[in-house]
């Protein structure tokens, strides 16, 4: 299966942007809140910042860290790094400091771009720190020419969950990004378009959101820092005249269940990162008559998208197809002996072409295991990447995604190797064995559940707290279950299927209706109650005593609260505020 092959010449990402700075210097390039940059201003600021980077010792081929929230400056910073001939390594500001430390050490970044509000953390992470919101960073003239950057040069390194316990850096060359954005066949962009930038730069949907508009003289609408509500998103789409937007599957589904009609100005609504529901795609198309809904599929190792399925009519198949390989991309469905499977049969999805990453930074063996010679390629010496996804070809030539061939799971669009979480759990004291699986909970949705063996009874709130210090929140299991022994299958291996089907003690029927915990504090308090009571979930309005709580449990909860938040909640306070929401409100009050 081959898409139209495009020859991507030795073109670079910043080269595409520079072309528009020359062609339409006064056209809007970036907007964020009240900040506006034209193409000329973007190019100038990025050129000055690139000079500052070089002044700080950044040379072609270097890796520069970025720890900053969404802003217009962030876009300037990424462009400046590329202009300096270096590659960007984005740190997710929501991740714990320990995670940043690992990433910076693994990527070997000596210089970090950040913002003044985050500079405290940043100072410990890199030898040199430059603040994007410091006017001095742009004070110098634009000096020197862009160093020799080719299509093979690294544009960015994206860290993704690693099954062996540490995240791995995917090395993405300029060629991969250019192949994604220069001549896309899944979306057609022009200077009149405006693309919303919402994804964290550490997430590879940002590659599309940032570089696709800038490669077409279009405008980036950066959603200001912070987590948006659905209404705020819809409001921005309308007020800023956004025409193209990407939503991760979970957010897409929520939007369809919410203010979807307010997105009527969109020409393209792209969604993916996880399985899309046929019903939601149908409702989106019905609500947005002029909008093409695109199912975008692909691993980071093949630069954001591998297959796309643009839709203007409701899906008639059982699942939403992932469509066809995009420009410059090939897809092969193979059996375990690397032979193509017959049409319609399930096979493992391998992909080749210009989108391929160079591999995993500092992991040659792991790279060789996943990037194999491509026997189907016209170019000698080409490679293909093993996605680990199962798929089949539908009669109309579309590809249908069927699931994973291994243990990898997707939760809220995040790609998770359970092995990474297991390794982190095994490093905690008292944990003798750990197996992590994804379970689909009828109300809470898909979530990670950790099954543990301990020498003694394991203190679950402590385990959760220690994991939170090291891992991003999507890698911290929602529930922890201590077992006497792991269930084994007939091969003597841990029976993961049994663990996936394992039923946790259900929250009893209560007098109050179910309300999901809202916000960080309520969520944490609800998790604490569920951890200590061993329940599958706890709602915001659930009454402690109705859930089966008793005085000893109350003492443990108040003890944990004082340890975690450094506030004192006495027994009387607790009994007077016996729901998650009330207790969280009290903690918040005491913290203020």
């Amino acid at each position, binding site marked *: 299966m081959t898409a139209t092959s495009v020859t991507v010449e030795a073109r670079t990402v910043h080269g595409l942007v520079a072309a528009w700075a020359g062609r339409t210097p006064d056209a809007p390039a970036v907007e964020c809140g009240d900040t506006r940059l034209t193409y000329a201003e973007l190019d100038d600021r990025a050129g000055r910042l690139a000079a500052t980077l070089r002044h700080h010792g950044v040379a072609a081929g270097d890796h520069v860290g970025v720890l900053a929230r969404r802003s217009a400056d962030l876009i300037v910073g990424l462009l400046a790094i590329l202009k300096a001939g270096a590659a960007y390594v984005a740190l997710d500001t929501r991740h714990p400091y320990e995670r940043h430390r690992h990433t910076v050490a693994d990527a070997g970044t000596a210089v970090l771009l950040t913002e003044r509000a985050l500079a405290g953390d940043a100072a410990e992470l890199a030898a040199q720190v430059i603040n994007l919101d410091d006017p001095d960073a742009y004070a110098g003239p634009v000096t020197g020419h862009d160093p020799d950057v080719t299509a093979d040069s690294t544009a960015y390194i994206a860290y993704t969950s690693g099954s062996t316990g540490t995240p791995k850096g995917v090395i993405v060359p300029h060629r991969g990004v250019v192949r994604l954005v220069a001549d896309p066949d899944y979306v057609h962009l022009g200077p009149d378009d405006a693309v919303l930038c919402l994804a964290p730069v550490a997430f590879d949907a940002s590659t599309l959101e940032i570089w696709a508009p800038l490669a077409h003289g279009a405008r980036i609408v950066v959603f200001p820092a912070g987590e948006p509500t659905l209404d705020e998103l819809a409001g921005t789409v309308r007020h800023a005249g956004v025409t193209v937007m990407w939503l991760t599957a979970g957010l897409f589904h929520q939007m369809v269940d919410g203010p979807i009609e307010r997105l009527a100005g969109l020409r393209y609504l792209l969604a993916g990162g996880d399985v899309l529901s046929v019903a939601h795609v149908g409702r989106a198309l019905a609500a947005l008559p002029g909008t093409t809904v695109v199912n975008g599929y692909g691993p980071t190792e093949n630069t954001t998208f591998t297959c796309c399925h643009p839709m203007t009519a409701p899906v008639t198949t059982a699942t939403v197809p992932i469509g066809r390989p995009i420009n410059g991309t090939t897809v092969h469905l193979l059996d375990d002996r690397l032979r193509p499977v017959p049409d319609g049969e399930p096979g493992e999805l391998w992909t080749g072409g210009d989108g391929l990453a*160079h591999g995993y930074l500092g992991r040659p063996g792991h790279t060789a295991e996943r990037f194999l010679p491509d026997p189907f390629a016209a170019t000698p010496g080409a490679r293909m990447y093993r996605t680990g996804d199962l798929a089949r070809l539908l009669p109309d030539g579309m590809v249908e995604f069927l699931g994973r061939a291994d243990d990898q799971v997707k939760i809220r669009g995040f790609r998770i190797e359970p092995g990474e979480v297991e390794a982190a759990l095994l490093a905690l004291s008292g944990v003798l064995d750990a197996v992590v699986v994804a379970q689909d909970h009828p109300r809470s949705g898909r979530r990670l559940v950790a099954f543990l063996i301990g020498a003694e009874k394991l203190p679950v709130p402590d385990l959760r707290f220690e994991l939170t210090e090291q891992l991003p929140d999507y890698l911290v299991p929602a529930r922890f279950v201590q077992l006497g022994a792991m269930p084994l299958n007939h091969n003597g291996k841990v029976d993961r299927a049994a663990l996936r089907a394992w039923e946790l003690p259900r929250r009893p029927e209560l007098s109050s209706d179910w309300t999901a915990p809202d916000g960080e504090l309520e969520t944490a308090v609800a998790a604490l109650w569920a951890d200590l009571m061993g329940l599958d979930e706890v709602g915001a309005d659930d009454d402690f005593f109705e859930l089966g709580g008793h005085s000893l449990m109350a003492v443990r909860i108040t003890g944990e609260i004082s340890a975690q938040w450094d506030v004192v909640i006495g027994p009387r306070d607790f009994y007077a505020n016996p729901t998650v929401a009330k207790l969280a409100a009290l903690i918040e009050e005491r913290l203020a």
Partner: protein
Amino acid sequence: MSGPEDEDAREYVVVVNQQEQYSIWPAELAVPGGWRPDGTRGTKAECLAHVDEVWTDMRPLSLR
């Protein structure tokens, strides 16, 4: 990824292309064009361990 057990027990060869990128290939199949065997043959784990030793500069040759 840990594939099916028989896949891990099969014999592989280590191969390298013009960009000096290394990979592995099932010994039973013809080596695709543009790749040459480097002489190492063994289980998947043995071949990958060899790659870990010899592929010290992972940049494509054109960038070195």
